[in-house]
């Protein structure tokens, strides 16, 4: 069976879709079934309210993720009450989400549930640690790539990315866009000492050659091209806690110091720049590193899109495998 034995090496795994309808749910359900068959103790949660829908507003969407006995799952009070299968509450957390407190429960029979987990990265990390103390071998996280979310799936040990025709109906374009995301996930992480010092930092800081961290006293790099700010007084390494945008990279890549600039970002989800601008910045010699890094272990593709587009699964797989040295699986072939 594909990629499940690899999964067992990790304590937490996020499944992240680059777009809706790229087969995230099918992929997740597949992994859950395989792990169940192996008798592995698993827990399931998500980042915030299911990242890719706004069903907390309409409340109409049906729960999709299958839960089996004796899996653990974590969701909000409000979603917990909506479930129709028998489950045993193990913990009621002090942490609250928009939908109430988080409930940790064990399924006593199978059923489906809406997931809503911690909305920020630190809470998610704590939750994963707590689940481990309840005997959980691996925590699966329904993740999302969202500008709005303050929680990042990068906090999990490993990640599976789902992509497909819903993102682009053109194979070369889809491969290029997907490869870009994979490149970002593969960005190197900084040394642990500096990481621990920067994790609690929320404003732009400069790091000199000796590792001294200096607050640059600017809140945002938005409109940096208009400002007379000496960004590099203390060195060419900058920690940017917020979003890295085209505007920022366009500004930096034309500076004469461009080749010496190193940006440190929280994790790959904070890079919102387009592939073109990002590539230009890198080609000019700039580098980017992350505080929190996850390991991408596989890609999952959905060649069908809701608008009727169906791509050639084999060609897409081959094209991706050529660019990205990782297993690539067709979600439709996992379903069975």
């Amino acid at each position: 069976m594909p990629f499940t034995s690899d999964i067992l090496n990790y304590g937490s795994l996020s499944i992240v879709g680059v777009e809706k309808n790229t087969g995230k749910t099918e992929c997740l359900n597949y992994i859950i079934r395989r792990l169940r068959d192996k008798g592995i103790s698993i827990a399931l949660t998500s980042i915030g309210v299911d990242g890719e829908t706004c069903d907390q507003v309409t409340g109409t969407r049906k729960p999709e993720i299958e839960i089996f006995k004796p899996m653990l799952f974590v969701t909000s009070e409000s979603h917990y009450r909506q479930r129709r299968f028998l489950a045993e509450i193990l913990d009621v957390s002090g942490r609250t989400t928009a939908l109430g407190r988080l409930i940790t429960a064990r399924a006593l029979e199978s059923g489906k549930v809406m997931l809503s987990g911690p909305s920020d990265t630190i809470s998610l990390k704590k939750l994963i640690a707590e689940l481990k103390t309840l005997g959980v071998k691996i925590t699966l996280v329904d993740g999302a790539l969202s500008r709005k979310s303050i929680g990042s799936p990068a906090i999990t040990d490993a990640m599976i990315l789902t992509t497909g025709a819903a993102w682009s109906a053109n194979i070369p374009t889809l491969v290029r866009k997907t490869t870009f995301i994979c490149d970002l996930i593969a960005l190197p992480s900084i040394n642990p000492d500096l990481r621990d010092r920067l994790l609690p930092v929320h404003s732009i800081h400069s790091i000199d050659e000796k590792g001294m961290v200096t607050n640059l006293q600017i809140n945002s790099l938005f409109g940096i091209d208009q400002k007379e700010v000496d960004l590099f007084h203390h060195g060419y390494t900058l920690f940017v806690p917020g979003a890295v945008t085209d505007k920022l990279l366009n500004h930096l890549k034309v500076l004469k110091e461009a080749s010496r600039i190193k940006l440190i970002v929280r994790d790959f989800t904070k890079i919102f720049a387009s592939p073109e601008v990002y590539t230009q910045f890198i080609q000019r010699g700039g580098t980017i590193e992350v505080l929190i890094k996850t390991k991408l272990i596989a890609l999952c593709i959905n060649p069908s899109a809701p608008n009727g587009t169906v791509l050639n699964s084999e060609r897409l797989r081959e094209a991706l495998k050529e660019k990205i040295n990782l297993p690539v699986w067709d979600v439709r072939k996992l379903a069975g």
Partner: protein
Amino acid sequence: MFGNWLVDQQNRIPDMLQLKNAIEELESLRFIIESLPLQSAPSRRYVLALNWMTEPETITLELSQVASSLQFLEANEPLLSDIRSNLAQIKDIKGTLRNIKTGSTPDDIELFELKHFWLLADNIQYLLSGVEIKLINLPELEPVMRILDPEGSRIPTYYICDRYDEELAQLRKSCYNAHQLGNYNLEEQLREAALQREEVVRQHIGDQLHANYDSLRQAMDQLVRLDILLAKAILFRQWGFTNPELSEKEITDYQGLFNPLVKKSLEDKGGHFQPVDISFGHNPTIITGANMAGKTVLLRTVALSQFLVQFGFFVPATKAIISLVDHVMLSVGDKQSELQGLSSFGAEMVRINEIIQTIRSGKRVLALIDEPGRTTNPTEGLAIVKSIVELFEAKRVPGLITTHYNGIDFSCKKLRVKGFSGVPLPENISIRDLIHYLDYNLTDDTCESQPHEALRIAGILGVDNELLELAHQYVLEQERIKNHQIKSN
């Protein structure tokens, strides 16, 4: 405008006081409350709602409980961390308790909370079972335990298990069988029936819990009480607080009185707090002394101790006898009123008026007034001090009034902070070291002459030499005139 102010302020005369109001008035009281090592989530809410007590019997009872808690600490040190870690897991389930009280059907989350709580109560009861000193009185836990844990598993997880109801168990079994046989229509029907039956069971559980509401409430109140008692005992032992005696002769007498907040901030800077002894009755006492001699701190500390004892706490002293009052009222420069647009003089007068009106309403007031009239001209300022003293004497008000005004011919008790008197200061002493040369002890004031230490302190602070020299000349001149007047009389 000013007249209106005074009318408005009539309504500010305090009546029923809770601790949460008192900590707004006195920072050092807030410091103590925030330092209480409380464990359970609802404890803080309970502490802030503590009522001001004026009956000697209730205060004595509470203080004796605190004293028992200290004995409990000494005798049961090994148990303490177990008890406290159980207390720390108690969550604030007031919402759930309210729903049980009104008789609404609890959901699984509320039932989980109750079971979790009840198991903690059970643990703590077990831990206390061999202990001689009885600090709290828990209800019988078994009836509620049977409702929340019908299987007797004693595991802190919750769901509506089959044991609750034979019919529910049957429906679930049939539903499972239908699922195994692949009969999904039947499964869905049976599932719906099982869910409905579950709700009936929950209602039944809710009714049973409702009938046991008093036990639930009592258990929560008692466990929070245990937490508060232990927190008090731990804090008082650590900080060296004492169990005060309640005075029957309208005398308040502190030995080794200290202010924990000021003490801590001094010790953080490498200094130490010098405790003081002070005694006063139901009449005014005038306190004089140099600047920086700690007169304001003394007033705040006396206020603090009075608040503490009448909220059921020990006091920061080595020995204390305290006369109870109805209100503690402090006037030490009220920033709030000044912000509301009154001058410092205006704000002070409004506050003093509040104090006097409260006294007139027949209440026993401990009045602590810091340098009344200091912001106006000396003639009227002195007149204000004298009038306050006279009024307090007539009304037999226990009051401490600090002042810098000289040579007042008061008939009342007069104390002076010793300050620098008699201690030779080394040359070039720094302001940091100055406090080491200050004697904060109080002595009976003979009223012969006021210590002239203001200029000396200003000098140590590094104030301009010419200014000080001029000021010194004026002091000498005034003394010459005074002596001349005495001679010619």
